[in-house]
């Protein structure tokens, strides 16, 4: 028995050490993945990792690849749709085998980008063409190009709001709460649906950081011990509005068993009045409205109910950023695909999203924003790396559901505490974390 134990232990230790040794990959070349000068010459088979399994399955991606092949006849594009994109890619990134083109997973720290992805060019070069390029900027070089972006605000059912007698977009949080109250009193609809159980829709509130003060630097301002929830700050206004909505009983009866897929139908049918989501949801809601026998015109999108100098602001935030694997053997072809897919494929327009290419027009889904002169605030993301590091160290999760679920619980009395105490606690955590993280 003694012998066996030693053997097993020795094996375990040896394997552990080798496994650990393999984990730390060497530094690969930092050669820029530049666009090919002559489309006819570049060749190779590239693999694109994507979270859009739906588009891979229904053949849309294949159709894009076929279109791409007309310009780049020698490049073959293969797609790998991953259902649990974040989880799977994160693990695969411990090896060299994570496709040629991929969406940058949220788990990768910004400062690590140069270790995983090939640079696509300097920020000066790319920021003229593409929006959101500063999100992946590490010391002057860009590592990812956004697929498209999203404008943020509330999605709502127009007929429900009209039935309640509200025809104008509320201009202050109080007006917004008043409008929801009117919906509760005058219609059978649930004024606001939290999607508490699925949770991630609660994270959409954070995307509005910047809508309150119309400040493009709003997110960067969080990169130090600034007590983000202090009176009058972006997060204070945003989270107070959520808190008051819940506290006023303006949400669904049982938040703990909400259902995202079902919520689309409920909003389309007018059982729900309002939800906080990005503009990406408009096409999905319109489709649901048509299926439910209504019309796409029933779905409206409104900016966050705060005005600055008489004008609304809506933040523009980036969707997944496409990057080239630093270990890829076909960097030119990969870059060609990213450029083509972002600028020429028509993908963003089809999804009704804000195009990443600055010169392209806003999509039809945001017509009401354009017509009503809503200012689009393209949030600067230069300090996102630091902000995320502080956020993780503090274990708050601005883009995670947990802290807002607790906020909702406090507001509806399911957990003890007051909003002010909770804000103070969050501020304390943030400020303490800022001392250690994100230098």
């Amino acid at each position: 028995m003694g012998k066996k134990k030693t053997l097993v232990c020795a094996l375990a230790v040896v394997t552990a050490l080798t496994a650990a040794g393999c984990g730390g990959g060497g530094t690969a070349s930092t050669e820029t993945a530049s666009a090919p000068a002559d489309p006819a010459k570049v060749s190779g088979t590239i693999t694109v990792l994507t979270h859009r399994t739906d588009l891979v399955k229904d053949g849309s991606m294949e159709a894009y690849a076929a279109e791409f092949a007309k310009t780049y006849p020698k490049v073959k594009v293969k797609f790998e749709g991953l259902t649990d994109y974040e989880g799977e890619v994160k693990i695969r990134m411990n090896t060299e085998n994570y496709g040629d083109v991929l969406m940058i997973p949220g788990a990768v720290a910004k400062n690590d980008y140069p270790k995983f992805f090939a640079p696509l060019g300097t920020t000066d070069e790319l920021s003229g063409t593409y929006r959101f390029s500063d999100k992946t900027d590490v010391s002057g070089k860009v590592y990812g190009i956004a697929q498209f972006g999203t404008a943020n605000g509330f999605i709502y059912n127009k007929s429900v709001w009209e039935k309640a007698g509200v025809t104008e977009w509320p201009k202050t949080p109080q007006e917004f709460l008043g409008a929801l109250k009117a919906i509760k009193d005058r219609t059978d609809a649930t004024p606001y649906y939290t999607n508490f159980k699925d949770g991630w829709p609660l994270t959409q509130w954070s995307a509005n950081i910047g809508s309150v003060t119309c400040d493009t630097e709003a997110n960067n301002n969080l990169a130090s011990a600034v007590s983000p929830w202090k009176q009058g700050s972006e997060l204070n206004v945003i989270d107070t509005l959520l808190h008051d909505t819940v506290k006023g009983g303006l949400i669904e009866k049982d938040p703990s068993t909400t259902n995202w897929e079902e919520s689309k139908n409920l909003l389309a049918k007018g059982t729900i009045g309002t939800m906080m989501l990005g503009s990406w949801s408009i096409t999905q809601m319109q489709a649901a409205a048509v299926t439910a026998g209504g019309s796409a015109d029933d779905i409206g999108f409104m900016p966050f109910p705060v005005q600055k100098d008489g004008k609304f602001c809506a933040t523009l935030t980036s969707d997944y950023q496409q990057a080239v694997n630093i270990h890829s053997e076909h960097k030119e072809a990969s870059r060609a695909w990213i450029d083509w897919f972002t600028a020429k494929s028509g993908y963003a327009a089809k999804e009704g999203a804000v195009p990443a290419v600055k010169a392209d027009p806003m999509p039809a889904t945001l017509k009401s924003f354009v017509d009503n002169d809503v200012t689009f605030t393209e949030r600067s993301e230069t300090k996102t790396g630091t902000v995320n590091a502080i956020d993780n160290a503090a274990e708050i999760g601005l883009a995670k559901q947990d802290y807002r679920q607790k906020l909702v619980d406090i507001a509806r009395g399911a957990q003890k505490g007051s909003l002010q105490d909770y804000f103070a606690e969050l501020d304390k955590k943030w400020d303490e974390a800022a001392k250690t993280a994100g230098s």
Partner: protein
Amino acid sequence: MTETTDAVTARTATAGRRAAPGPPNRPGRRSAPRRLLPRITPWLFLLVPLALLVTFTYVPVANMVYYSFTDWDGVSPDRNFTGVDNYTQIFTRPELFRVFFVSFYYLAASVFQIAVALYFATVLSFDLRFRNLFKGILFFPYLINGVAIGFVFLYFFQDGGTLDSVLGWFGAGTDHAWLGDPASANTSLAGVSVWRFTGLNFVLFLGAIQSIPGELYEAAQLDGASRWQQFRHIIAPSIKPVVSLSIILAISGSLSVFEIPYIMTGGATGTSTFVIQTVKLAFQFNKTGLASAAAVVLLLIILLITWIQRRLVPDEKVDLV
């Protein structure tokens, strides 16, 4: 390399011996390598299971222990040794341990669960009509995948869902959000866990009870023992080891509850358990090092509790006849 060659030789040798009919080997005919054979044969049989055991149990555990001393974020190629910093954090941050209170709901539930399982196992070990049908019904929930159970019970507990309508039939129309506040949410989740695991305990108990020789019951009946006396003096003592095993499983299970609350509430509304918290540390906040340390601590706690329990209730030999 030599080991493999040896293995191949040995295997052919064994095969050859098995194939060859005739008188058993006489000691005098054995050559030197053949004398080695009996000694390595058990290892040959163990080769595959040991390889699997090491690859899928000990290597991951060793890796986890290694990560627990680093500040690794789960992706970055760089990781720094931070010594026992992660462990210090776990023991100096009371909120990380507070989630263990949730385990008491599951612990209380498992007492109930063991009692119910024991009752049914005893009743169904006697001759009853539809005995096998009831056995099947009781065991069935354990066969269903935990994720599926989570989804089914989400509908069960939702506003106007199955539970509310059933209560409605009896005139007890409730307007209660079952997963809406911490106390009722944890009770509901613990209830789901009872529903799921009673079958397992039941089968363990039933197996133990059925291994009791039938003559004992006959003798007891001749002496005029009632059903309760039979349970008290024959069944209970003879299944004691299985009951104590069940208790160990129940305690370690209560400390490491995961899938039911994770799927049904995601740890919201005060239903977070230690494992859910660990998963969130690792995959939401990218603190793989800290999460590994938490996992190691949980492992140690469970080992410790099991050890204490074995000391308090030593394994007694059951000798009925």
